[in-house]
């Protein structure tokens, strides 16, 4: 009994010491787990990282919880995708946080999409097409080359916010850069078998991955996200797949898989469900996530 309470006190004092240590670190609020994972690679122990969403959650929508506001309130740095991905909740959260340092335009406000070349940027705005993503496709994290570019910019930002430890970030960034480049060469080599493969996508989530691996997108099942496709679209899709087949239907982890299952049955094409992001909350790293993506894509072409 005594030893148990002693170990409890030991645990509490450890927690206490940890909290004291945490005082000296930067608090990072990531909108999506991929940016939490990237921050962890670049900052290590210097950062106290929280991810507002998980890989199995659609970052377009999140339910408001009190802890979310509390985390935003004490954050030194907010890392989000931008490009209107979080437009439904991030502005509200930032306003409710009352935290001046993380407002748009401040050093504590980092949007990853600002630092990469965007795909699917509309040529002209047409109201009849509705509220298009004016900045282009926001799912930039599905191309590892983008991760590398964003890592460089994020490092500069961390150094600006925590200048006393600029060398620490510099060193970690150098290590990350070389390790990531090695990993990219490895993924590229392993993915040779799937290069040029004809695929059907559920919606435009994987455009950057498709660009990276030179996949050939032959059709999109749900061109308008969140709105079920019309029967004419489905009929055309089925017909075009009969003329020239595809090797797989690529689906996103958090999406409803019923339309994909329907098409798979109709056209006899296997489904590959890719996790939308890093399982940061369970300790997965960016490397492990991309490894998994390559493995899953290779399955139907074996």
């Amino acid at each position, binding site marked *: 009994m005594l030893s148990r309470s002693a170990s409890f006190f030991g645990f509490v004092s450890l927690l206490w010491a940890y909290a004291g240590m945490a005082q000296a670190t930067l608090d990072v609020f990531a909108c999506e787990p991929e940016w939490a994972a990237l921050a962890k690679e670049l900052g290590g122990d210097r950062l106290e990282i929280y991810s507002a969403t998980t890989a199995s959650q659609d970052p377009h929508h999140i*339910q408001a919880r009190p802890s979310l*506001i509390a985390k935003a*309130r004490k954050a030194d740095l907010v890392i989000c995708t931008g490009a209107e991905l979080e437009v*439904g909740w991030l502005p509200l*959260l930032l306003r409710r946080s009352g935290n001046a340092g993380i407002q748009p335009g401040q050093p504590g406000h980092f949007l990853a999409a600002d630092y990469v070349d965007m795909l699917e940027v509309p040529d002209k705005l047409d109201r009849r097409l*509705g509220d298009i993503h004016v900045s282009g496709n926001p799912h930039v994290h599905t191309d590892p080359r983008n991760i590398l570019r964003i890592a460089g910019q994020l490092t500069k930002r961390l150094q600006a916010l925590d200048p006393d430890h600029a060398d620490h970030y510099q060193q970690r960034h150098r290590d990350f850069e070389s390790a990531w480049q090695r990993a990219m060469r490895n993924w590229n080599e392993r993915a040779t078998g799937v290069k040029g493969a004809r695929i059907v996508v559920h919606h435009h989530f994987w455009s950057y991955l498709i660009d990276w691996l030179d996949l050939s997108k032959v059709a999109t099942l749900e061109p308008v996200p969140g*709105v079920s496709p019309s029967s004419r679209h489905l009929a055309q899709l089925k017909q075009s797949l009969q003329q020239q087949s595809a090797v797989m239907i690529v689906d996103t982890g958090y999406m409803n898989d019923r339309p994909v299952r329907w098409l798979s049955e109709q056209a006899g094409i296997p489904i590959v469900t890719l996790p939308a992001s890093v399982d940061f909350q369970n300790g997965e790293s960016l490397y492990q996530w991309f490894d998994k993506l390559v493995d899953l894509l290779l399955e139907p072409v074996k």
Partner: protein
Amino acid sequence: MNLEGLEISILAPAFVAGMIVLMTHLPLGYEVLRREIIFIDIAVAQIAGLGVIIAYTLGWDEHGIEAQIAAVISALIGAWVLSWLEKRYGEHQEALIGTSFILAATGGILLLANNPHGGDHLKELLVGQILWVEWGQLLPAAVVSVIVLAVWLKFRERIGSAGFYTLFAIAITVSVQLVGVYLVFASLIVPALATIGCSTRSGYGMSAIVGITGYAGGLVLSALLDLPSGAVIVWTIAISALVMHITRPCKALINSRTKSK
């Protein structure tokens, strides 16, 4: 357990929003139960949402004052049509309300069929989130709610069906945008249901207790358990209603009064 979210400045605007909603919804809730038109709030909210979608497809700003006007006007039109239907086909009113709900909901889907963010807009209109409420939004909502409440308490006998439906449409349009459809339904129906059979005066008091403990308990619980606040509050309102129903304080009151006579 999570003590971090348990901060008064995070929870206070949400709690006040809840109190503003309760102010109109407690008295209107009894009327809704009496008329047996339980799902009218969801139907009117959906029609108001449809109005915003129409305004949006016409190129208006969906967050501006135009959208508010579009929401109120379509809610009023919807409410007046429902009030006319009640007069004409009173015995089928519940079925007609249900039908107008699905028409408004699917009408929104059809209007947004070519809109890449269609689904987002539909969802946003349906569920305003209580935790995102800011102090600045509360003042106009409070003013409108006080006026609705005052008119209802003073002229309820005289304004008839059309008057009730008008007040109701305004109250719902305001509250749905603050707290979302689920909480509007819970605030309207559940406290009234828990205190059915109470005298009017003690009923109001008891249903206010159900509503206030529901909101306060739900907000605290959602902070402690780190769960979405709106959904937790719906459950705590239901639980405090159940406790109220089981302990039956006003029935005991009535019984003791009749005994003492």
